[in-house]
């Protein structure tokens, strides 16, 4: 090789490596910039709130301020609430929401798949389900309170009715929209009706069902909280209600913050489970390849 061509290769080599590094640096900088902007936005908002409240531009009694909310959370954490320790309140609400969520999801999936597969059932039950779905189901919470009392059962019931419908409709749709070539192929390969349901319809409906699981866990929390708000002996909803009763705005906000953290954690867990379950799926464009 001629010496000049060797130097040329080295130079292009260097240039290429330099470009790759520059690109990596640019990507890193962008990530930092986004993160920084996020934090800045939060700080600006909280500071503005705090300053406006302290200077009495907005009424601190009605609107409270971040430092008081923080004090409220700290007090609840360290000294417990009027109904018992904070952990116990969170656990109560979570327990009701989870139980309602699991029951609602199980019912929704089973009924959705059954109606999606059995035409007769769909034709008979279809209109009733539509009517029930049209009802604003949160009004059932007071009825449940009358039926099941102040304990967890009434909250679980209102969570169930909120969770059931979105899950049901997605499972139904999922069972209906199964690729018919997959079903034909399974039948040709010798699958019985039961096998087709278990090994073709349910797996293909899972992505539909999972979409509804995310939304519906939020609904389960709403059901539990509203139930507690209307009448309970324990739970975060009761914290909101009793804070409201004593004109403690900071208490209401503090309960909201706690709820948001709980909901985000649950969401994270679900996403993790989903990733494990859907290894067979091609990644969304950009995430793979």
């Amino acid at each position, binding site marked *: 090789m001629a010496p000049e061509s060797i130097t040329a290769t080295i130079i292009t080599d260097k240039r290429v490596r330099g470009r790759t590094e520059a690109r990596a640096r640019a990507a890193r900088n962008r990530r930092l910039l986004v993160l920084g902007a996020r934090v800045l936005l939060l700080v600006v908002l909280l500071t503005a709130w705090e300053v406006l409240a302290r200077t009495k531009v907005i009424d601190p009694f009605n609107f409270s301020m971040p430092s008081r909310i923080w004090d409220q959370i700290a007090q609840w954490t360290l000294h417990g609430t009027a109904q018992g320790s904070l952990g116990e309140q969170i656990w109560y609400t979570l327990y009701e929401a989870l139980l309602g969520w699991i029951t609602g999801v199980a019912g929704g999936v089973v009924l959705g798949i059954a109606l999606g597969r059995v035409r007769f059932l769909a034709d008979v039950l279809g209109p009733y389900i539509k009517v029930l779905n049209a009802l604003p189901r949160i009004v059932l919470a007071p009825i449940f309170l009358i039926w099941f009392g102040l304990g967890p059962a009434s909250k679980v019931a209102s969570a169930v009715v909120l969770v059931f419908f979105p899950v049901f409709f997605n499972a139904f749709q999922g069972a209906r929209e199964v*690729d018919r070539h997959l079903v*034909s192929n399974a*039948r*040709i*390969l*010798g*699958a*019985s009706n039961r096998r087709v349901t278990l090994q073709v319809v349910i797996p293909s409906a*899972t992505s539909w069902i999972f979409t509804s699981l995310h939304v519906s866990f939020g609904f389960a929390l709403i059901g539990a909280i509203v139930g507690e708000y209307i009448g309970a002996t324990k739970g975060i909803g009761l914290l909101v209600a009793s804070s409201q009763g004593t004109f403690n705005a900071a208490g209401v906000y503090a309960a909201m913050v706690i709820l948001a953290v709980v909901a985000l954690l649950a969401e994270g867990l679900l996403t993790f489970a989903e990733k494990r379950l859907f290894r*067979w799926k091609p990644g969304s464009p950009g995430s793979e390849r």
Partner: protein
Amino acid sequence: MNNGTANAHPPGGAPAIELRGATKAFRTPSGALHTAVRDLDLTVGQGEFVAVVGPTGCGKSTTLTLVSGLEEPTEGEVLVGGEPVSGIRPEVGFVFQQDALFPWRTVLSNVMAGPRFRGEPKARARERARDWLGRVGLAAFEDRYPHQLSGGQRKRVALAQTFVGDPAILLMDEPFSALDVQTRALMSDELLELWGGSRSDGRKASVVFVTHDLEEAIALADKVVVMTAGPATVKQVFPIGLPRPRKVESVRLEPQFIELYREIWSCLGEEVRITRERGASHGA
């Protein structure tokens, strides 16, 4: 020269597939009655490779669903091995035009699906599935999911999935139409090879291969059936006397192939024209 159809009718045996005056009509979503296949007569001998060509959307695929037992004819009879078809039979294999692999199962598990559905023990099913994956050249890919494979590889998995069931009747619905030209020629050769040595008792499967590609049809088949524009019925049957074993890429350069192509195309071309004119008048 005509050794391709020599074993079409073993003495005393019924033809592998027989359609007698088969008609299939569907109710379209708008409520109209659409006749896909009308008064179809077709015979496929034991071990015979029959290619069905016809204009797009003429009802070729419907013919296959009738033979497979996925659908029942509105009128007429469909016989497999001399018996009327009622439901899906274990000796029938079907390769679909679209991807019909189970996307949530690995390649190995996809090939095992048939034997497992039919109640074969897991270990034996796995062993046979591995054997077939080896034969289609995908032994190293058994843990992959379908979306991680190329179109040609997925088609090979589909072939293995079908052949592992040891089908005596093989129905193929434009199986290679989604592949690029080179892959297609390769897959055609592979199909002929697999077909030659497919069955456990050494006999060849009887094949109905639906395609709209006339070259593919002539290169593969013992007999090319030309269908009319929809509703489909048989227009003419051409025996293909090309010697076997064939190589798809070289056989199509032979003078006899070109002569057959010209002859069949003059028959098929007319139907394609009719379909196209109809499509134009519908404004589609």
